[in-house]
């Protein structure tokens, strides 16, 4: 285990567990979420619930990625 300090491709990005967890939220919302969101009602701004849920998740993704970016070690 002596080579633990050896430089590594991902080290420079400072990816932390926190940043991964924050980014996992929109990821799961879009890949697993549809299982629970496949409904027509309640309609939101006229959109069927499923579409409204997906649009909301997509719109929130930049916010989560921004937070993930802040959580990187720099």
């Amino acid at each position: 285990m002596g080579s633990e300090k050896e430089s590594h491709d991902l080290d420079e990005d400072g990816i932390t567990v926190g940043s991964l967890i924050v980014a996992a939220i929109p990821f799961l919302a879009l890949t697993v979420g549809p299982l629970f969101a496949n409904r027509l009602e309640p309609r939101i701004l006229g959109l069927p619930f499923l579409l409204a849920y997906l649009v909301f998740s997509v719109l929130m993704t930049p916010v989560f990625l921004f937070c993930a970016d802040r959580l990187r070690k720099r």
Partner: protein
Amino acid sequence: MNSLVALLIIFFVIIGTIGFGIFGVRKVRMSPSQFILGGRSFGIIFLWLLSAGEIYTSFTFLGAAGWAYGRGAPAFYIICYLTVSCITLFFYFPAIWRIAQRHGLLTSADYIGHKYRSPALGFLAALVGVFFLIPYITLQLTGIQILLQIGGYGTINSPAAAGAAFALIIGFVWISGLRGAAWASLIKDALVLAGVIFAGIVLPIHFFGSPKGVIDAVLKVHPNWMTLVNGTGNYGTVWFMSTVLLSGLGGFMFPHAFASNLAAKSPDTIRRNAMILPLYQMMLLLVFFAGFTALLVHPGLTGAAADQSFMLVVQQHYPPWVLGIIAGAGCLAGLVPAAAQILAAASLLSRNLFRVREEKLTSATRLWIVVMAVLAFGLWFFNGASLVGLLLISYSGTTQLFPGVVLSLRKQPPHPISVTTGILIALAILAGFAFAQVTAFYGVHVGTVALVANVVCLFVVDYVMRVRKGGSGHQKVETEVRT
């Protein structure tokens, strides 16, 4: 007369954009890195334009509306998968960019071959990249043909016209490389945005008072159109989730998408682009509204014909100049990505499959651009699948590179043989499903089934090889040397 006005506008839109692209690169010397990657100098605006330009293709313009028209809720997967792509890109691509920059790597296959120190694996990656990009290029041609056919009001020979438009774009990318494509994206994106706003806001308001009105009207006729219907096998919730995952992970494995990210100026540019790109998905919401409107105004199109849905509405209810502008924007949406895709495929052929030396790389890549174009055109001639159908074939194959690319960044990457076995098994499974004409396995997209087999196989083979070598692991695949 109508057709003349519309076709002339389409013609000037295409020529104007190509002229603008060539003007943008008039003083640039075309070294291989300049030709293929725009000299790795794209800042956030250029990278965003190019990524958005590559993502918003004929498929977005016609295919997404076609699915909203022909299938309803399954079409929603399209707004999800690119977002999933961006989330993963944010984490793994900056590291790849640094390695590529340090070692002068130009293509996705360069990266894989270099990182695994396996020219054979690089060769396989190039082969997969080129082979599965062809349906995507075919898709662009199909889109352009549909637009010219509708723009000509049925008066012209549309395959010939599409061929002519395609020849123009080949000439364009031959001259200007990736930087020219990025410049052309500038005009293309602006026009497509205008076209989509017209189709997704003006059309619904014209016919139903508001976008909400369209949804209400669709639900009256097709109560199940806005939710996923389970039980029928295909296109249920499981299909939806597996397709989002498959397309999401594979999104940036395409040779052209990989190249556009390598063309970024810095890792931060890639991360910033990944953050803002999902917002661009909202344009697709408007495309869905256009498809829903067409479903009620012009019902009865089935199969691949659904891809013509909203353009037919525009043709029948609006003056020819409106049709000309929208069809012109749509043609650009096919031509600009086709240019970037053909360039990426040609660079894989010249650099990775035929290993041309650096000094001759630009001219060899130009030669392969022509060959690829002829090939794609030939295949297109014999094809009848819908736009989304073509896209899903492309994604099924291309995504199989994802495990190898991402795992290459681990401290101890897997052995190249295990990655190769995984890809080959996945391709065999895809070929089997394709032969049996099966698109979903217990509701799961076949590409995702192949991806799971790929990953399982990769880990099993890697484990076996480690055990046989006596625990301490196989050769260190790479120790990075800093310069």
